[in-house]
């Protein structure tokens, strides 16, 4: 059986240099956005999803585990952060901290259940777990059910940066995104990342080499969930609310779609995918449910003919690693 991301792997050895250049270009582009007249709210939203998709990609692209429940990390961190800011009156940095910590805790608990199975079972179990959490959030009072937590105050980051100002908030989100991105980048290129890749390629061989593969997978799952939670905490400052949409299974599907479009197992693919999908939702919003249909079509087309994704195809064409 061929692994899910087998053919998306770069054909030449990965060169850190190419990726650093791409990283520099991306950073430069992000820094000049406020001067371009682009709607900053849109870019901030896309960045949160980009980080989320990158975190998801860490698990599927490098660990070979398809999670169909990553929305639970996004939503959990979002709820906890929003609650911490609005009800406990915590500062933004503490709010992000508790939100991310909650996602990490959730990662540990659900990971212990989910990594017992792999492949399709893993996908279905994560989906069911996130749906379990969805129903819990529907009922627990602190999430305010269908109403969600609304009007979350943005506050002053470190007591200095006024997040209610859209330019300040923008650069804070960019910084948060870059931080998360670099952590993922570092992980992929660490010895830990190499072991993960070897598990993805051939788990039996990794076991015979003496690696406790379940522990590696669990660790990757927790890390992925934590970073997804970090993205969820950041998103609270952008949207100023936390709601059931973020824990619903359709959100998990969107995360998969973003990564698939950009390219599973590529470093920059999820970022591109997130921007493509969010832009599509933004500009086609007037077409109502046709957006869902288009997303479905993209899914089908990607799976049937375009399995490398945008960045994967580019990388493949230029025989570079991106």
């Amino acid at each position, binding site marked *: *059986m061929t692994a899910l991301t087998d053919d998306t792997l770069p054909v030449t050895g990965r060169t850190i240099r190419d990726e650093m250049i791409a990283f520099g270009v991306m950073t430069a582009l992000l820094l000049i956005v406020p001067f371009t007249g682009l709607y900053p709210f849109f870019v901030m939203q896309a960045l949160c999803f980009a980080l989320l998709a990158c975190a998801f990609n860490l698990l599927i692209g490098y660990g070979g585990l398809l999670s*169909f429940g990553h929305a639970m990390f996004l939503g959990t961190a979002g709820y906890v952060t929003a609650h911490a800011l609005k009800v406990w009156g915590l500062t933004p940095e503490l709010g992000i901290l508790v939100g991310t910590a909650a996602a990490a805790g959730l990662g540990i608990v659900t990971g212990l259940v989910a990594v017992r199975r792999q492949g399709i*079972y893993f996908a279905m179990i994560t989906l069911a777990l996130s*749906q379990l959490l969805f*129903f819990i959030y529907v009922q627990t009072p602190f999430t305010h059910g269908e109403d969600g937590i609304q009007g979350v105050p943005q506050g002053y980051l470190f007591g200095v940066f006024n997040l209610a100002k859209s330019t300040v908030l923008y650069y804070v989100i960019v910084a948060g995104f870059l931080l998360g991105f670099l952590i993922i980048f570092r992980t992929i290129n660490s010895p830990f990342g190499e072991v993960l890749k070897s598990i993805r390629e051939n788990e039996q061989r990794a076991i015979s080499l003496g690696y406790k593969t379940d522990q590696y997978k669990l660790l990757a799952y927790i890390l992925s969930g934590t970073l997804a939670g970090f993205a969820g905490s950041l998103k609270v400052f952008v949207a100023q609310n936390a709601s059931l949409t973020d824990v619903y299974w359709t959100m998990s599907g969107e995360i998969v779609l973003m990564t698939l479009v950009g390219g599973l197992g590529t470093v920059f693919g999820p970022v591109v995918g997130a921007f493509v999908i969010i832009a599509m939702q933004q500009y086609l919003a007037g077409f109502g449910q046709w957006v869902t249909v288009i997303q*479905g079509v993209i899914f089908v087309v990607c*799976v*049937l003919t375009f399995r490398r994704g945008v960045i994967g195809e580019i990388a493949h064409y230029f025989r570079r690693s991106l």
Partner: protein
Amino acid sequence: MQALYAQLLVGLINGSFYALLSLGLAVIFGMLNIINFAHGALYMMGAFCAYFLLNIAGIGYWPALIVAPIVVGIFGMILERTMLKWLSGLDHLYGLLLTFGLALIIQGVFQNYFGSSGLPYAIPDELKGGMNLGFMFLPIYRGWVVIFSLIVCLLTWYLIERTRLGANLRAATENPTLVRAFGINVPRMITLTYGLGVGLAALAGVLSAPINQVRPLMGADLIIVVFAVVVIGGMGSIMGSIITGFALGVIEGLTKYFYPEASNTVVFVLMVLVLLVKPSGLTGRTT
């Protein structure tokens, strides 16, 4: 006490739908090794098919019970021939992603034309009204759903486990090359199996139309519960999926009586417990 029986009955009705749907999933998984995410959407199409038959062609409930599964089954076979077929040899997860995309397309199209609130589908005259059983008031239609689905489930089990056709099918799952050597057209068999699984989903859709109304998203949430049912039962066994389906419906009904707050989550909690104790599911083989 009266309420307990009543909730058990409601649970049994939901269990019928779980059983029919997880049975279809199990049949498809057994043959194609694909988890059919579009199953909920096809279930919905079954209900819509019945609705169209009634409102456009004037064809009532009884013929629809046969016609709708066939129509939707053929639609499913077209999907298999034009798309799913190309995924053989790739990771199973691609099948999940593809069918997820198909589910989005189908549900999205129906939502565009019919909104997300329901269209009414009347209970057939023969099954209208209810009986006072003394301990509860039983709407006749709901009793019919339970009995009819049980019969369909058992017939499907018989077809696959006890007939020659079923034997070929099971053999083809185990070793397609060998079965082909016996002169059996395996690709056609795969297509027909997918059609059968889809037909079962559509049948469940027709059955639920008078109860749940005909809504584009009627299968969207249901399918995730059914996934959990399948994980609990283990995907290997036909009988396993039937029994688990009905049993979980009843357990849900009990929860509604004793602790209603947990009724939405009980299936998922059970799934977690089963995974901790027996990761391959109650009746499943290890993969």
